[in-house]
């Protein structure tokens, strides 16, 4: 067996090595454990690393975001509330991974209850960006993105409510898909905002991303929001002939987009044109202007309801109290960090008597506008493109004391999430030595169009996914 370079090995290549018996499942797993031992003390991508039989399977290794329930393996959601929680059943996506022989490396760090854009809201300390450990990996799925970028997993599962797969993928230079709402089961996944939450893949290549999506997607009797999904096509085309690429003005000119990010995205759009795509401008005026406000009314409202279950009764933390009410209130004060508390209060306020129509009710109507604007854009275009994040990875600590500044990280990913649309982020270049993400958005169930477009661009961009400081 030749030495396995976990920084470069894709899942597709790992599969070939396993099938040709050039490496065994144990050797492959050991190579990743060695990489974790070497680099994770600095990165802190993992909250838990699997040992022995609990990893399951003997195939391609995979890392799992710690909001996804894993039987017999701790699942904390990055919160003190679930510090000692060990699920007694697997999430459907875990069952599907296991049925494909995938082998779990461990559970990756996340902002508490997936609420955040930097992974700094984790109760277990932040994850560091493999490109520059003084910077954040994005969030909430910073652990999964850092694990893939740092060669600590060939691919990973994340979850996305308003950008938690796409934004970390952008900041860590990997490929992340937020699938169409309803294509991937949430059964067994810690709930944040149920009309938005989706599970999806993070990988080094678009083909790996498509392959992992084909494994986890499809109707599940245990999640009544799931539907039948079109057959996944692993992309092969190197050109973009016949693909109509729309450039929404407001998503590309929004205030706060760094010049280096704008340049890298503009070059990627020019590249798309040179590959044969028909490129044109379009407009999503109210989606961008009101999307963030709409999201920060709807997502906290749903979160305040979902997080009501943490009451110290059936599972999770319990604090002491003289009576039931005191026990519940103390448990929730001790178990939740600041961000869940903020969102629970914001959501409770938005839903409270006298404010409901002006807040939650209004936001639901704005959501209809956002959906209509995207529908109109897709009458003329197959795929819409923009930066994934307005900025490259920022310094740890830069935004922790200003929640509103943190929320602006998701300005460009949120509108399509509100409309239930699939979105893919691929690395399209560097700015200040840090990766820039290109966001591709499609109509509902158009994952194959995203894979096709992103794969052709990926080939032409030839972005090196290995962080510069790890290259030998």
């Amino acid at each position: 067996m030749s030495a396995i370079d976990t920084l470069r090995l894709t899942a597709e290549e790992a599969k070939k090595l396993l099938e040709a018996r050039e490496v065994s499942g144990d050797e492959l797993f050991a190579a990743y454990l060695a990489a974790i031992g070497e680099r994770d003390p600095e990165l802190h991508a993992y909250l838990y690393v699997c040992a022995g039989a609990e990893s399951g399977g003997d195939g391609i290794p995979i890392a799992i975001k710690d909001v996804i329930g894993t039987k017999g393996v701790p699942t904390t959601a990055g919160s003190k509330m679930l510090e000692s929680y060990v699920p007694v059943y697997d999430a459907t996506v875990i069952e599907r991974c296991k049925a494909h022989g995938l082998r779990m490396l461990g559970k990756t760090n996340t902002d508490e209850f997936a609420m955040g854009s930097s992974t700094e809201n984790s109760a277990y300390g932040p994850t560091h960006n493999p490109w520059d450990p003084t910077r954040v990996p994005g969030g909430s799925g910073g652990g999964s993105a850092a694990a893939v970028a740092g060669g600590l997993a060939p691919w990973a599962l994340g979850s996305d409510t308003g950008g938690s797969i796409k934004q970390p993928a952008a900041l860590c230079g990997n490929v992340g898909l937020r699938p169409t709402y309803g294509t991937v089961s949430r059964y067994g996944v810690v709930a944040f905002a149920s009309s938005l939450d989706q599970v999806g893949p993070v990988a080094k290549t678009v083909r790996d991303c498509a392959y992992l999506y084909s494994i986890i997607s499809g109707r599940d009797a245990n999640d009544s929001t799931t539907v039948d999904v079109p057959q996944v096509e692993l992309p092969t085309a190197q050109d973009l002939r016949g693909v109509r690429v729309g450039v929404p003005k407001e998503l590309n000119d929004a205030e706060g987009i760094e010049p280096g990010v704008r340049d890298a995205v503009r070059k990627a759009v020019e590249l798309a044109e040179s590959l044969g795509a028909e490129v044109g401008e379009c407009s999503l005026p109210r989606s961008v202007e009101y999307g963030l406000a709409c999201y920060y009314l709807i997502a906290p409202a749903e979160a305040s309801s979902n997080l009501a279950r943490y009451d110290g009764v059936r599972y999770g933390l319990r604090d002491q109290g003289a009576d039931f009410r005191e026990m519940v209130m103390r448990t929730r004060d001790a178990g939740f960090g600041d961000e869940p508390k903020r969102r629970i209060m914001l959501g409770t306020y938005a839903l409270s008597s006298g404010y409901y129509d002006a807040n939650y009710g209004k936001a639901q109507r704005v959501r209809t506008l956002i959906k209509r604007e995207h529908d109109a854009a897709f009458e003329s275009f197959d795929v819409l493109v923009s930066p994934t994040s307005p900025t490259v990875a920022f310094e740890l600590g830069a935004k922790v004391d200003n929640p509103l500044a943190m929320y602006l990280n998701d300005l460009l990913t949120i509108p399509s999430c509100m409309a239930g649309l699939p979105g893919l982020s691929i690395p399209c270049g560097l700015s200040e030595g840090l990766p820039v993400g290109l966001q591709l958005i499609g109509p509902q169930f158009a994952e194959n169009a995203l894979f096709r477009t992103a794969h052709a661009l990926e080939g032409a961009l030839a972005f090196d996914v290995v962080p510069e400081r790890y290259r030998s």
Partner: protein
Amino acid sequence: MAGISRDDVLHVARLARLELTDDEVTKFQGQLSAILEAVSTVSELDLSDVPPTAHPLEIENAWAEDVPRPSLSHDEAFANAPDREENLFRVPPA
């Protein structure tokens, strides 16, 4: 609706069953006011003729056959319980 008072914060915290320290009330009052001011932009829009969207897919009624199947045992269901008495969750008096 921009800006909420200290009493508003305490009221919402009570509704949400959160016990907050005085310092937390002060901190959250400022932060929540700033966030509410930012999201209040939606009230500018006249949306009286726009229907609400509660769910991004147009699915109606997902039916399932009502068939008995194995479920968790009592010991599994109580595996993470902070306190158990026989087959009940035990809590302080209400």
